[in-house]
């Protein structure tokens, strides 16, 4: 308990230094300063990060909505471009999702290459991957990272054009493009 050294009256609790926290204006100014500090730190951290992303993306001619960085040598593909490649039959589609998700619905002809079991599954698919003209990797939606992950790993093994259909299965389905259920491609 706090005690006074110069007087013998009953000690009382003293208010804490509140740094402007006792008024609404002070609270709001403090909140704004914290917000500004967080924003500056975030921008600085992104600037020096190895996973830096552009602050304001510039959508390319394929109108990809989020210009997120892709591994070197891996290019992005819009739904219409993916459908064009599907119709032309020039690309082999690789589905990076789990087998259950693949079985629930996938792009016809796509091979299931779960990112989580890449090393175990890839040897069985290597021959067909080698024979393809180009490759298109995808996963569930723009949120998932499996499409980018398998594209990056396949790129290290086979030197051929490789794309990521970033909007993935949900966009394919929403566009009404052909779909297939089951474990078979």
């Amino acid at each position, binding site marked *: 308990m706090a005690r006074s050294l110069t007087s013998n009256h009953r000690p009382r609790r003293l208010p804490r*230094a509140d740094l402007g*926290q006792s008024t609404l204006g002070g609270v709001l100014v403090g909140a704004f300063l914290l917000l500004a500090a967080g924003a500056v730190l975030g921008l600085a951290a992104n600037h020096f990060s190895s996973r830096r992303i552009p602050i304001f993306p510039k959508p390319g001619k394929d109108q990809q*909505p989020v210009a997120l960085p892709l591994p070197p040598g891996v290019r992005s593909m819009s739904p219409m471009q993916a459908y064009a490649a599907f119709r032309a039959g020039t690309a082999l589609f690789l589905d990076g999702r789990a087998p259950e998700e693949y079985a629930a619905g996938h792009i016809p002809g796509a091979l299931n290459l779960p990112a989580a079991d890449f090393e175990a599954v890839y040897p069985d698919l290597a021959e067909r991957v080698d024979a393809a003209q180009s490759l298109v990797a995808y996963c569930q939606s723009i949120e998932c990272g499996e499409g980018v992950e398998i594209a990056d790993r396949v790129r290290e093994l086979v030197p051929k054009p490789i794309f990521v259909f970033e909007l993935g299965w949900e966009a394919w389905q929403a566009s009404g493009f052909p779909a297939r259920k089951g474990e078979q491609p």
Partner: protein
Amino acid sequence: MSEGRARRFLGSPVTGAVCRLLLGGVFIYSDSHKLLRPDEFARLIYGYRILHPDLVNLAGIILPWVELVPGLFLVIGLLPRSSAALLGGLLALFIGAAALVMMRGLSIHCGCFLPILSDRVGWPLILRNSVLLLLALQIIIWPSSFLPRRRAPGTALPR
């Protein structure tokens, strides 16, 4: 519990400290995975389909830090009301965003605790954020702090 006892309990320094540590701790923990992965976090934000795509990356870059700074301040007891007000405002936004996602029928990950415990957006998420919002309100109404007490005029420093 009578109204007076409830008020004493809610206003006690121990309750305040627990609320500060819980709220600050949750945000610090959830941010520990997002800070260095702005690309993954931006994807998740895009999944909400609320922000304009041009702003998604900016949000992915600064949001984890805007959560982390007040979280740290809450844990150390500095600017508790401002920190709780900022986090409370963010929580209110998150609750509104989750409600909007549910109304639209989207099934997306909330991105709360990357890469684990990334629940899908739904009622459990809204409930959890509402509880955290109550913690923020407790801190705003009854702030507690580790700051030293002020020195009263004519007295020596308290021991």
